[in-house]
């Protein structure tokens, strides 16, 4: 025990399953948890859509809501849930000294404007001039800000008054890994006392699907659990809209406030394996060993596996080769949430530790039961294309 241990004191979650830590716990532990999917809107792709959200509950001003597209609103909303949960929301002094690391991609472009430009391009050879013509007259001036990567953090500052510092990391799942890793390292070294960390992903926009499909990564056809997509049509990824934010604090800071601690965040490790060099499987296995030293007792693993064939196969074989590990592929139920994937896995791991129970298998054909009280839980994110990270969350 050290005063600078990193503890989790706030969790904010939104996915197709609902909103809030408690709602997720209920849904995920209720007998056989079922996914919420939508196969109609973006055929041949299935997605996990956002639930109904009353944005006003966390973003009071309608003016603020209007300044954001859905992705930023989702992140700002979920950050509010985490701050609320940690008893920090509305506490001016705590927010003003709170650091923030957000894992972000980009926001939603104006689909109508883009479609109009593309349609016009069929009959124009001067496409560059066409672009100038259309973009100067049709783009909403503030749309740029509503899609700009660092403006999710910017909106969190404006809406929730978190202003100690504001950093935005980019780079798909790896951004989520680095955000959690950097936040934890800063607390552990005394560079920060309390940090808001997380990310959001809103998949319900064709460009967000395109970001995967340019690499052939999306699963096509009927929904399948994340571990059962090898050999199916497409690249294996089913996406979901969702967000996860955590409040991390030093033990000392949390204790001084008398806050409930969900769990301690122990090792956070990351890597960039040279996947094409044939070293992928063993490097994932090494990362697991680095995060969670092999033990005799069963270990629950909340896997962020995307479904992407190569990455998911490597992760599955590394997890399966360790008999003591019982893994849960969260993307089975939430879909892949890109930048939010790792923070989401860490949050579910912390919930299991706090509630002193594991999750039932999300896919009974591929996952074995976990009995007993989880003392520590592994969270993983092996990127669909690159970058890997793991964290061990332990009972405090």
């Amino acid at each position, binding site marked *: 025990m050290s005063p600078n241990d990193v503890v989790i004191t706030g969790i904010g979650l939104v996915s197709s399953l609902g909103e809030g830590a408690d709602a997720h716990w209920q849904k995920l532990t209720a007998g056989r948890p079922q996914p919420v999917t939508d196969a109609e809107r973006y055929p041949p792709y299935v997605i996990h859509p956002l639930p109904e959200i009353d944005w006003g509950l966390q973003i009071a001003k309608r003016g603020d809501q209007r300044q954001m597209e859905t992705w930023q609103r989702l992140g700002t909303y979920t950050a509010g849930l985490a701050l609320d949960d940690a008893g920090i929301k509305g506490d001016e002094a705590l927010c003003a000294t709170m650091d923030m690391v957000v894992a972000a991609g980009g926001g939603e472009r104006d689909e109508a404007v883009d479609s109009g430009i593309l349609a016009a391009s069929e009959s124009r050879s001067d496409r560059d001039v066409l672009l100038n013509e259309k973009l100067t007259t049709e783009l909403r001036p503030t749309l740029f800000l509503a899609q700009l990567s660092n403006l999710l953090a*910017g909106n969190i500052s404006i809406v929730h008054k978190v202003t100690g510092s504001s950093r935005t990391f980019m780079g798909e799942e790896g951004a989520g890994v680095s955000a959690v890793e950097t936040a934890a390292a800063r607390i552990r070294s005394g560079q920060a006392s309390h940090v808001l960390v997380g990310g959001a992903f809103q998949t319900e926009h064709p460009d967000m699907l395109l970001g995967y499909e340019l690499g052939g990564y999306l699963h096509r056809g009927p929904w399948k659990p994340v571990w059962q997509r090898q050999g199916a049509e497409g690249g294996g990824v089913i996406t979901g809209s969702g967000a996860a934010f955590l409040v991390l604090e030093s033990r000392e800071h949390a204790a001084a406030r008398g806050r409930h601690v969900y769990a301690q965040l122990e090792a956070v490790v990351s890597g960039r394996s040279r996947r094409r060099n044939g070293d992928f499987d063993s490097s994932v296995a090494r990362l697991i060993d680095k995060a969670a030293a092999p033990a005799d007792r069963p270990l629950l693993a909340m896997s962020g596996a995307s479904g992407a064939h190569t990455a998911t196969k490597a992760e599955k074989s590394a997890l399966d080769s360790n008999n003591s590990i019982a893994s849960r592929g969260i993307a089975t139920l939430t879909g892949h949430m890109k930048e939010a994937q790792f923070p989401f896995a860490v949050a579910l791991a912390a919930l299991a530790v706090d509630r002193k129970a594991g999750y039932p298998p999300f896919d009974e054909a591929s996952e074995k039961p976990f009995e007993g009280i989880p003392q520590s839980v592994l969270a993983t994110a092996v990127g669909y294309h690159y970058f890997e990270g793991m964290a061990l969350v332990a009972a405090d």
Partner: protein
Amino acid sequence: MARYTDHLGRPVVAVTGIGVVTSLGVGKADNWNALTSGKSGIHPIVRFPVDHLNTRIAGTVDFLASSQKGASALTYELAETAAQEAVAEAGVDAGDFGGPLFLASPPMELDWSERFSLYNAGKEGSAADRLLTVARGLNSLDIFDTSQFGSIADRLADRFGTRGLPITLSTACASGATAIQLGVEAIRRGECERALSIGADGSATAEALIRFSLLSALSTHNDIPEKASKPFSKDRDGFVLAEGSAALVLESLESALARGAKVLGILRGCGEKADDFHRTRSKPDGSPAIAAVKAALDDAGLGVDGITYVNAHGTSTPENDKMEHMSLSTVFGERIRSMPISSNKSMIGHTLSAAGAIEAAFSLMTMSESVIPPTINYDNPDPAIELDVVPNTKRSAEVATVLSNSFGFGGQNTCLVMARDPV
């Protein structure tokens, strides 16, 4: 003997390699010569047609092999070119850097040229369907790579053999400074002996220009491009969009001296503070910028009389220059009138994600060369901004310490304090 730890007992962070590319040229030598000659890199845009555009000038980098190949390719080449120079100067193995990478780069988007080609390769359905259908038939990852936010850093990590998962970050116009700050913090935590911090931005596309134009952020003084960026002038009317890159090899002073590396300067302090007022405007009382400057001074262990020169954010927008002056006046009091403060952006324009890194590189050179680059185009001073902006011509001066400011959209404020010598 130099002390290896600072006033808070943390490892002192030295700079042992610098690389830079701007519209003025490739490399430290060319850039420094142009910068101290008061030369502007701002020119009429030739990369794309300027029909219908209110702003037709920029500080684009048009002389690299990737200059016409899209934002992702150009940003990579800018980053690689600067990093190559920095790593060579530091005398570190160019393929086995041995420390982490922090890259400030613009958010990635599929270039319009790719959108057009994907769309027109399709046959039917909505625009979205056509793009997706063509995308899943592609046989190469080339276009995919340009759309992923982490792929430039991934390639740089391969190229330079940096350790671990590279961090790509954006804090808008403060990004370059944040990349340096992350490197400093990692070394102070003892996670590594050295770090490679890069700011690179090759994203001056037509759409980027139009976006800033729609926010009324850009100068429209198109007729004499080299005169358009005029920080602290009364008739300043916006910034000039520009491209460039800089890379710093950061290293614990102990490690640098142990291997006999030349110390080019010390990264003494970093400070930041987010603004919660508005998405593009700063809080009227300037308190977040003030707090960021103060935090950087505290982190550096310096008082307000500890700074010799300020490398201003100085964008040439009406708002920034007014607020920056107000913030600096609040922190430094009467002394600010006699402190030299200049804006590199008067010559290179606003290089966005790269600006903080480029201006840190120039700050370090200002100290080592004992020459302060001027603020050019200072012909019509703003009477409300009483500052010694080193008008129009360089000045020889002993500069022991520099404060470099970076302020950005989304309430981002990051300040760096650099020193010529170890304490």
